[in-house]
C-alpha cells in the first residue's frame, strides 16, 4: 500500500513537470494541429478515387488523423532521452541507491505525465479538427475500451522507450540508436500513415509487433472496428506486450547493474 502511495506521488510530479511549461504545450498543440490538417487533406485526396482502403472509409481515415495527432504526446512517440542522459552523466548511480526500482519510478512518472498530455496536448487539436471535419465518435462501450487501450498503449510505449534508453549503459553514443528506435515506432505503429493503407503482410506484421498496439489498436477501437472476442483479443495482445516489454526492460536493467557494480560504479 505504501508502495502505491509512493507511485502516486511520483505520478503527480510527472504531471507537474510538464504543466510547468504552458507555452511549450500551446506551441506543441499548435504544431500537432497543423500536421493534422496536412495529413487529413493528403488522405482525403486518396479517397477521391476510392471509397475504402483496408476497411477504412474517408470518415474513418480523417478521424484516425486527428485521433493519432492527439495521441502523439500521450504515448510519447518521439524521442524520450531522459533515462539515457541520467545513465550517461552518472546520475543513474544515485537512482540505483534509492529503495525504488528505476523502471517502476519512471513508469509511475510516465503514467502521471500521460494524462496531462492527453488533456492539454491531445484535446485541443482534436476539438479543432472536429470543428472542421466530420469525425466519428465511439459508442459508450468503445469509449471505455478506448481508455483502457490507450493506457495500455502508454505502458507498451514506455516499455520500449525504457529498453532503448538502457542502450546508454553499453553505448555512450546513443543518439543514433534512439533516433532509429523512434523511426521504427513512428512507421510501424501507424503514426506516419494508418496501418490499414499498408500491404496486407506488412500490416499484419505491424499489428502483431508491439508497435501496432501503440497507435493503430486504440484508434481501431475508437472507430468501432473491434468488438466482442476481437476486442478482447487486441486488448489481450496489448497487455501481453506491456508486460513482456516491462519484463525485458527489467532484465536489461539487471544485467546493466551487474556491469556497473563490476566497474565499481
Amino acid at each position, binding site marked *: 500500500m505504501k508502495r502505491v502511495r509512493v507511485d502516486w506521488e511520483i505520478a503527480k510530479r510527472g504531471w507537474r513537470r510538464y504543466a510547468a511549461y504552458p507555452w511549450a504545450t500551446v506551441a506543441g498543440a499548435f504544431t500537432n494541429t497543423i*500536421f493534422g490538417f496536412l495529413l487529413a487533406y493528403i488522405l482525403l485526396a486518396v479517397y477521391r478515387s476510392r471509397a475504402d482502403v483496408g476497411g477504412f472509409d474517408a470518415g474513418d481515415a480523417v478521424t484516425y488523423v486527428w485521433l493519432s495527432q492527439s495521441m502523439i504526446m500521450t504515448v510519447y512517440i518521439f524521442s524520450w532521452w531522459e533515462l539515457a542522459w541520467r545513465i550517461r552523466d552518472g546520475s543513474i548511480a544515485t537512482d540505483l541507491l534509492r529503495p525504488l526500482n528505476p523502471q517502476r519510478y519512471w513508469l509511475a512518472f510516465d503514467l502521471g505525465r500521460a494524462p496531462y498530455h492527453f488533456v492539454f496536448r491531445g484535446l485541443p487539436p482534436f476539438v479543432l479538427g472536429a470543428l472542421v471535419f466530420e469525425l466519428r465518435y465511439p459508442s459508450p462501450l468503445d469509449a471505455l475500451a478506448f481508455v483502457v487501450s490507450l493506457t495500455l498503449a502508454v505502458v507498451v510505449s514506455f516499455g520500449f522507450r525504457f529498453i532503448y534508453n538502457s542502450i546508454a549503459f553499453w553505448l555512450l553514443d546513443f543518439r*543514433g540508436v534512439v533516433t532509429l528506435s523512434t523511426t521504427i515506432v513512428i512507421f510501424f505503429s501507424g503514426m506516419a*500513415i494508418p496501418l490499414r493503407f499498408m500491404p496486407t503482410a506488412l500490416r499484419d506484421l505491424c499489428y502483431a509487433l508491439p508497435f501496432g498496439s501503440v497507435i493503430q489498436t486504440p484508434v481501431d477501437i475508437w472507430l468501432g472496428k473491434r468488438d466482442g472476442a476481437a476486442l478482447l483479443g487486441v486488448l489481450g495482445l496489448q497487455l501481453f506486450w506491456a508486460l513482456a516489454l516491462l519484463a525485458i526492460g527489467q532484465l536489461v536493467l539487471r544485467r546493466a547493474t551487474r556491469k556497473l557494480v563490476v566497474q565499481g560504479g
Partner: protein
Amino acid sequence: MVDAVFVWRRLVGAQIRSQLQYRLSFALDAFGSFWISFIDFLVVLVIFRNVSRLNEWNVHEVAFLYALSSITFAVTDMLIGQLDQFPQKIRDGNFDILLVRPRGTLFQVIASDFALRRVARVVQGSIVLVYALSTLTIHWTVLRVLVLVVSVPSAIVIFSSIWVVGACIAFWTTDGGEFTNAFTYGGTAMAQYPFDIYATWLRRLLGFVIPLAFVCYFPALYVLGKTDPLGLPRFLEFCSPAVAAVSALVAGLTWRSAVRHYRSAGG
C-alpha cells in the same frame, strides 16, 4: 562580406573536424537521420500503392516534389537547424556574449552550430531525386534547367527565413519555440505534396502568407510542364527567387527588431 564568408568557413570547418573525431558516433547519428527522413518517402509509396494518382499527380511527380522539398530542407537544417536550440541561449543569458562580439548576432548564432550528421538527409533526398528524374520524361530546355537550378537556393533561403522568424519568438517567450516546428517541419511536409490537394484557406495561409508554395510547387509545375490545376497565373512559376529575396529581407528585419527588444536574463 568576403570576410564574413572567410570567418564562417573557419568556424564551420573547425566544427566539422571536431564532429568527425567521433567516427562511430557520427556514423550511428547519420544512419539514424537517414532512416527517419526515409519514413516520409515510405508514406508516399504506401499512398501510391492504394491510388495511381493524387488529383492529377502520379507517384513520380510527387517523388520529384518530395525530393526537392527534402533536399532543400535538409540543407537548411544542416546550415541553421540549430536555431531550434536558440531559446536556450536566451534563457541562460548566453546571448549577451554574442552582443559584445564584433559580428552580427544572427551570423554568430548560425556559424556557431553546424550539424554535419544531417548530411544523411541530403543524401536520402538526392536518392529520391535520382529515382524521380530517371522515371519522369521531362522535355528539358535551357529555361527548365535554369528554373530547377535556381529553385534550390531559393527554397533554402525561404526555409531559412521561416526558421529565423520562428526563432525570434524566443525573444518574447522562451518555452514557445515549438511554434516554429509547425512551419519548418510542417513546411517541408506540406511542400512534399501537390498544393492542389489542400483546402483553400490552408493554401493561402501556408502557401502564400508563409510562401511555401514557392519552395517546390511552382518551380515543379514549370519543370514538369504541368498546367496548374489551381489555374493561377503562370508567371508565379518564375517567382521563387524574388519571393526568396523578400523573405530574407523580412527575416532580417524581424531579427533586428527582436534583438532590439532583447533584455538579458542576466547570464
